[in-house]
C-alpha cells in the first residue's frame, strides 16, 4: 500500500512542481531512495571531503543532518543526492536565510557553519563555545541568527543571537526552561524558543524574545485542548503565516501576538513503523504565503529516512521519502534556488 501511495504521490509532487513553477524538475520523478545514475562514481558518500554536483546551485535543495556526521544534500523535488558536506562533528539543527544560505549547528564543535546555496565550504563560522548549538533560526526582518543551545542536564543553555559572523553574540538565558532545543522567528522578528524534549527536572515550555527585546519572557503556549501539556517538542518553525511547533507526529500552528500565543490548528503526519525524529522544515516559495509541504527525518528499527507530507494537510502516509545517504536524520533545511 505504501509503495502504491508513493507512486501516486510522486505524480502529485510532479504536479506540485508545475504548480509552483519549479521548471527545473525533470519529466520523470526519481523513485525514493534510488541513487541517480548520473552521480559521478568519484563521489563517495562517506568520504573525507565535501562535494557537490555542478548543477546543485540551480536547484531547490534539501539539506539533511545525519547521525554519522555528514550533511547530505538533495534536489528537493527529485530527491536525488547532489552533495555531501563533511568535516562536522555532530551536525544537528539547520536553518536558511533569505538568500538561501544554509546554517548548520555543529553541536559537537560548538559552532554554526554557514554555507552558500550549493556550496561545499563554509562561507562563515559562528563560534558558539562554550555552548552546544542544537537548532537555529534566521530573523526574516533583520537577518539575525538565533541559536538554541543545549548544554546538558547539569548546565544551563541559552539563546545566542548574532547580527553577523564577525559580531559578538548576545546570549539570553531562562532559569525556568534551562536549556534550549528549538527556536523560530516569526514574520515580525519575534523569537519563540523552547527547551524541547526534557528528561530531567524541567517541564517542556516556551519563552518569547520580542523583536529587539532584552530578555526572554516565559509564555504559555496553548494547544488543541484547554489543559494541553507539551511533551516531545522538536522544533519551532515559521510557516509563512504561523509559528509551527512540531511534536513527534504533529505540527501545531500558533499565532504569536504582542506576547500572547494562540492555538490555530494541527497538522498530523504519520508513517508506518517509524518514529518522527524532527525537527521539520517547511517548504514555502511564496512571499507572505503559507508553506505547502513539510519534510522531516524519521527512523525506526529497519529504516532511516526523510519524509515529505503535504502541509498543512498532513497525512496518514508520507507523500515521498528519501533513504539514500540518510542516517538517523535530525535537522533538515530547504534552500530555494536563487
Amino acid at each position, binding site marked *: 500500500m505504501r509503495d502504491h501511495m508513493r507512486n501516486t504521490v510522486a505524480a502529485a509532487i510532479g504536479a506540485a512542481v508545475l504548480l509552483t513553477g519549479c521548471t527545473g524538475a525533470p519529466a520523470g520523478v526519481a523513485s525514493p531512495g534510488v541513487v541517480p545514475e548520473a552521480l559521478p562514481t568519484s563521489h563517495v558518500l562517506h568520504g573525507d571531503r565535501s562535494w557537490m554536483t555542478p548543477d546543485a546551485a540551480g536547484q531547490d535543495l534539501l539539506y539533511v543532518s545525519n547521525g554519522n556526521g555528514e550533511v547530505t544534500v538533495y534536489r528537493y523535488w527529485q530527491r536525488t543526492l547532489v552533495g555531501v558536506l563533511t568535516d562536522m562533528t555532530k551536525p544537528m539543527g539547520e536553518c536558511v536565510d533569505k538568500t538561501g544560505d544554509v546554517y548548520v549547528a555543529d553541536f559537537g564543535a560548538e559552532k554554526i557553519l554557514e554555507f552558500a546555496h550549493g556550496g561545499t565550504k563554509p562561507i562563515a563560522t559562528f563560534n558558539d563555545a562554550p555552548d552546544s548549538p542544537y537548532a537555529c533560526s534566521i530573523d526574516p526582518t533583520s537577518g539575525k541568527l538565533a541559536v538554541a543551545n543545549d548544554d546538558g542536564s547539569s548546565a544551563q543553555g541559552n539563546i545566542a543571537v548574532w547580527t553577523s559572523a564577525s559580531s559578538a553574540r548576545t546570549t539570553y538565558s531562562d532559569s525556568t526552561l534551562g536549556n534550549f532545543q528549538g527556536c523560530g522567528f516569526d514574520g515580525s522578528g519575534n523569537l519563540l524558543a523552547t527547551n524541547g524534549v526534557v528528561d530531567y527536572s524541567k517541564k517542556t515550555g516556551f519563552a518569547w524574545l*520580542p523583536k529587539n*527585546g*532584552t530578555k526572554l519572557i516565559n*509564555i504559555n503556549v*496553548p494547544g488543541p485542548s484547554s489543559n494541553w501539556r507539551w511533551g516531545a517538542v522538536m522544533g519551532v518553525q515559521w510557516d509563512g503565516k504561523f509559528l509551527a511547533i512540531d511534536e513527534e507526529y504533529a505540527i501545531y500552528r500558533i499565532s504569536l*501576538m504582542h506576547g*500572547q500565543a*494562540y492555538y490555530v490548528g494541527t497538522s498530523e503526519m504519520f508513517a508506518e513503523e517509524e518514529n518522527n525524529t524532527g525537527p521539520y522544515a517547511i517548504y514555502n516559495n511564496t512571499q507572505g504565503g503559507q508553506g505547502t509541504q513539510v519534510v522531516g527525518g524519521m527512523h525506526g528499527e529497519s529504516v532511516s529516512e526523510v519524509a515529505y507530507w503535504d502541509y498543512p494537510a498532513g497525512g496518514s502516509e508520507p507523500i515521498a521519502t528519501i533513504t539514500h545517504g540518510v542516517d538517523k536524520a535530525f535537522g533538515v533545511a530547504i534552500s530555494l534556488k536563487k
Partner: protein
Amino acid sequence: MNARSLGIALSLSSLAACTGAAAPPPADQSAFNRATTSVARGPFRLHADRRRSWFAAELAHKQSSLLFVSDSGTADVYVYSLPALKLMATVTGFSQPQGECSDNKGNVWIADTNAQTMYELSHHGRLVNEIKTTGAYPVSCAWDATTGDLAVMSLFNGSGTSGDVLVYASGSGSGVPYTNPSQYYYDFGGYDSEGNLFFDGLDTNGNFILSELPRNASSAETIKVSGGTIYYPGMVAWNTAKRELVVGDQSCGNSYASCLYTLGISGKAGTISREIALKNSSGGPICDLVQGALLNGEVAGSDFDFCGSSPSATYVWAFPGGGNPTNSNAKSDSVPVGAAVSK
C-alpha cells in the same frame, strides 16, 4: 455629535449598591480547591487545576470596589482592593484569561481565550456563570448597561478569516456575530451609555482600526481617527464625565511603551484630544498596559513588562493626569492582561 452619556466603564458608580445582593461565599473559602470543588454555588465548573484558589477572609464581606486582573502567564485572576491594591484573592483554574468587563451586579466577566469560554465571577470572586464561545477566540468583552447584553471580542478565526464581535443578549444564549468588513483582528471594546459599542483591533493591513457598532445596527463601521497615530490596540472605555472615548495604545509612538488617548467622537470621526503617559514605579514609561479600567478619577491596570525595565506590576494612576502611579503591587503579576473594576 451623537449624544453619548454614561458608558459601561464608569456606569459602575451607579451600580455599586447592587453588589450587596451577592451572598457571602462558604466559610471554607481559604481552602477553596478548584480541582475538586471548583464553584461555591451553582453547576458551573472551571477546568481542573493543581493549584488552589485563595480568598482573603475579609473578601467575603467586602462591599467596596475591587480590581480584577487576569494573568495569562499564571492562568490566574487576581482580586485587589482599591485603591490600596491589597491582594484579596487568587482565582485559579483558567487556561488563558485575558480581557475583562463588569456588569451592574458587580460581577466580572473573564475572557478565557484558549478555553473558548467566558467566565462570570461574582464580586467576591466566585464563579457564577459561563458561556461557551466554541470556535471563537474570546479576548475581551463589554457589557451594555442599557440592555444587559454582553459583547465578546473574538480576536480572529483560526481558519484564516477575520474575527468578530459576538453579542449575547442578556449575557446568555447564542452569540450573534457582528463585523466591520475592514477589520481583521478584534481586540477590546466598550459601550457608551446609549448602547453603541466601540471596539478596536487591526485592519487587514495590520494597522490600528477603531470601529463602532451602533445600537440596533446590523454591522459595524470604521471610526476614522485623526490628531495622532495609535499603533496597537489597547483598552476601550467610555469616559462619562467628559463624554469621550478612552483608547489604549500598547505600542505608543510605535515603541515598547503604552499610553492612553482620549478621543472626541463625532459621527464617524474620532479626534484625539489628549495623550496620557503612564509611568511605572521606577519612573519610566510602562511597557505594556494591555487593558486598563476606569474608575472615578483614576485608571487601574497592569504593566506586562517584557521590556526589562521593571517587574510586571499592577498600578493605579490618576486619570486623566497619568504620570507616576499612586499605588502599585508587583507581587503576583506574570503576564497581566485584563482589568475590570467590580463595585
